[in-house]
C-alpha cells in the first residue's frame, strides 16, 4: 500500500515536471491542483517537481533545442504550479544553495539575457536578487552587503557600458565586501581576458555556465 502511494507520488511528480518542460501551462496547473487536493504537501514533492521541470528546460535551452520564448514559457508553467503550492509551502522553504545578486550595469538598459540567467540560476536552487538594469555601482554594493551575497553577477550587452563593471569591483573593495563575495561577469562583449583585466573572479559564457560557476563557488567558499 505504501509502495502504491509512493509510486503515485512519483508518477505525478514526473507529470508536473514534464508539463513544465513541455511548456504546458494548464497541465502544470491542473497537476499541481491534483497534488494539493490529494493532500500531499511534503516539501520534497512540491519543490523537486518544479525544480526538475525547470532544470530540464534549462538543459534544453543550453543544448539549443529551446530558445528564449520556450524557456520563458516553461518558466510561466513553473510559476503557475508554484502559485498553487505557495499557500501550502509556508514556513517550509528549502534551504537555498547560496545567494546571488544580479543586474545589468550602469548605462545599459538591456536585460533579457540577464533575466534568463536569473531564471536558470533560480531554478538551480539559488536565492536570486535581480536588481534590474542601469544599476549603479552603489546599488550593487548596497545589495551585496544587505543580502550578504555569496556571489554578484554583472551583465552588460554593450561595449560602451562594460567598463562600469570595473567600477563595481573597485567599490566593493573600498567598502570591504570584496573578500566575501565572488564576482561573475558576462554578456555579449565580455571575454575571459576582460574579466581578468578588471579583477572579476569568473567569466560566464551562458546561463548554464553561471550555474556551474556558482556550484563551484559554493563548494570552495561556502560554509
Amino acid at each position, binding site marked *: 500500500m505504501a509502495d502504491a502511494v509512493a509510486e503515485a507520488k512519483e508518477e505525478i511528480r514526473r507529470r508536473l515536471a514534464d508539463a513544465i518542460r513541455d511548456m504546458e501551462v494548464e497541465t502544470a496547473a491542473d497537476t499541481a491542483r491534483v497534488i494539493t487536493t490529494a493532500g500531499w504537501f511534503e516539501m520534497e514533492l512540491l519543490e523537486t517537481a518544479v525544480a526538475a521541470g525547470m532544470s530540464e528546460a534549462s538543459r534544453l535551452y543550453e543544448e*539549443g533545442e529551446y*530558445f528564449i520564448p520556450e524557456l520563458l514559457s516553461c518558466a510561466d508553467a513553473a510559476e503557475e504550479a508554484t502559485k498553487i503550492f505557495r499557500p501550502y509551502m509556508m514556513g517550509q522553504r528549502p534551504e537555498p544553495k547560496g545567494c546571488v545578486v544580479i543586474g545589468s550595469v550602469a548605462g545599459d*538598459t538591456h536585460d533579457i539575457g540577464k533575466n534568463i540567467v536569473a531564471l536558470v540560476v533560480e531554478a538551480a536552487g539559488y536565492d536570486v536578487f535581480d536588481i534590474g538594469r542601469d544599476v549603479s555601482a552603489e546599488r550593487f554594493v548596497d545589495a551585496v552587503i544587505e543580502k550578504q551575497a555569496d556571489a554578484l553577477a554583472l551583465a552588460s550587452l*554593450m561595449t*560602451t557600458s562594460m567598463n562600469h563593471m570595473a567600477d563595481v569591483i573597485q567599490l566593493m573593495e573600498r567598502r570591504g565586501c570584496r573578500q566575501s563575495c565572488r564576482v561573475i561577469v558576462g554578456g555579449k562583449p565580455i*571575454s575571459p581576458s576582460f574579466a581578468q583585466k578588471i579583477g572579476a573572479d569568473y567569466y560566464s559564457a551562458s546561463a548554464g555556465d553561471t550555474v556551474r560557476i556558482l556550484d563551484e563557488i559554493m563548494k570552495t567558499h561556502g560554509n
Partner: protein
Amino acid sequence: MPELFFQEQDQRVSVEAGVTILQAARDAGIIIESPCDGVGTCGKCQVQLKDAAPGSWKCEEAHYQLPAELQEQGYVLACHTKVYGDLIVVAPNTAKQNKTLKILSEGESFQYEIKPWFQKVYAAPKGKTFVLAGGKKVGEEEGDTTKQFYGLAIDIGTTTLVTALIDMNTGEEIDSLSALNPQSLHAQDVITRIHMASKPEGLVLLYGAIRDEFNHTIQELCKRNSIESRYIYEVIYSGNTTMIHLACNVNPEPLGQFPYTAVIRGGNTVPADDLEISPYGDIYLPPIISAYVGPDITSGVLAAQLEKKKGTTLFIDIGTNGEMILAQDGKLAGTSTAAGPAFEGMNITCGMRAGNGALELYQIQPDGTPKTHVIGDVKASGICGSGLLDIIGELVRVGVIGKSGRLVKPDKGKYPDVLKAQMKEKDGKPVFYVAEEVYITQSDIRQVQLAKGAIRAGVEMLMSALGVEAEHVDCVEIAGSFGYHLRESSLIDQGMLPEAFRGKVKFVGNTSKSGAKAFLLNQEVRTYMENLVDEIKDVELSQDPKFQDVFVKALTF
C-alpha cells in the same frame, strides 16, 4: 624592439614589446579588418604568423575561439595577440577586397523648387562674383563664375558611403560615387564605433579615416567631371546620429550610455574647414528626430513626403538599427530598435558583406531544388544580409526550420529529400548547406531571430503607440540600400513583418541621399523639417515594460 613584417603589404614596422598585432598595424596605417574593434568577439581579424619562434608572441584568451585546425596553421586573432619578438604576419590586403561592394544609390523623391541656401551673383561693374549664404555675402571670386556652382549630398551609412555631386543651378545630379565607410574596417557596428570614438585616439583614427575618404571622393568626382573642387559650396551629411557625430569629429560617448543622448541635434550648418571644397563652404546637418532616429530618417521622411500622405504608411530602414516612422494622416511617430549587425553578416558563421562571392538570393522552387544567385557570378564564399534573410525565410516556409527556430532533423521533417541531403553535421552539430562550402548553423538562426524579432517588436510597439492595427496600414516603405535587395516574401515568411503587410511592401531605395539632395537644393525645406521633427512622437522602447513580452513573442517564426 621587435620587428613585424606584414608580408602582403610589404611593410616592416618596429614596435614596443607587448603591443597587439592589431595596434601595431593601425599605428603603421595597415588595415586589418576588426569589426568588433578588438574586443575579441567577432573573430574576423585573424592573421597568419609564419615560422614564428616560440616566445615571440603570446595570445590572450578571447570570447571568440579560433578553430583548432586554423590555430595549427599559425592563425591568431590580431587583436588578442601580443608581440614579443620578430614576426612575419600574413594579413589580407583589404583594399583589393572591398572594390566589389554592391551599393544602391538611387532613392524615391518628390518635386521641389531649386532655391539653395547658397547663391552666386555676378556683379558686372566690379567684374566679380559674390558668394552668398542665407542671403549674406560670404566671399567673392574673380570674373563670372556663376555657372560653376556645385554641392554634395552624402549618405553616410554605417557600412557604405554614397556621395552625389549636384549642379546647384539646375538641380541635376551630375555623378555619384559609392564607397565603403572606412570606419567599418576598424569598428563595424554603431555601438562598437561609439566605444572606440569615446577614446581620443579612437576618434582621431575614425574621423581621419572618413575625412580622407570624403576628400578622396571629392577629388575623384571633380576629376571625372572636369570641375574644380573650389566651386563646391555646400555639403549635406545625411546618416544615423552616430555617423554624423563621427563625421563632425564630435565624441559620441553619451549616445552609448543610457539615457542615450545626442550631442549634435542637427538643423544647423558648420564650417567645412577639413573638406577640400570652396573656402566659403559649409556643411548642413539635417535635424535629428532622436538619439537613434537620425538625419538619414529625417531625409527619408522628407523624400517620401510622409507627413503629407493620406492614410497610414510605415517607413522602415532595415539595418543594424531598425529605424522606423509610422505616419497616419499627418501624425508621425518614430522609434528605433537594436537589430544588431547580423544583417551585415556579422556574428554569422559564413557571413560577409555584399561583395563578390556573397550569396544574395536563395529561393526554393516547387520541386524542392534551391535557386541561388551569387554576386559576381563566382563560386559562393559566404552569405550577405539579403541572402541570409532569403535563406531563413525560405527554410521556414518549407519546414527545414521549425516555428521555434530549431533546425528540423531529416528523419522528423516533411521537407523535400533534396533539402534533406543538405542537412549535415559539423563538429557534432547540425548545419544546413546552401552552397558547396557555405552553410548556416543553429546559432546563425538564433542571431536572425534576435534581429528580426527586434524589428518586428519595434513595428508592433510603434503601431500600438498610435493605436493602429496591422490591417489598417496602407503602405510599407522599406528604405536603405540593404532593404532594396530584399524580397517582400522573405520578410513576411519569417515574421519580421506582419502577415497583413503582404502585397503592401514597396522598396523606396536610398531616401537618405535623395532627401539630402532636397536639403541641398531647397533651403525652405530645412526650416520646415526643423519644425516637423519636433512634432514627431518619439517612442522609446527600452523604457517600456511591454517591450520584453512583445520582443519575445516576435522571436518565433
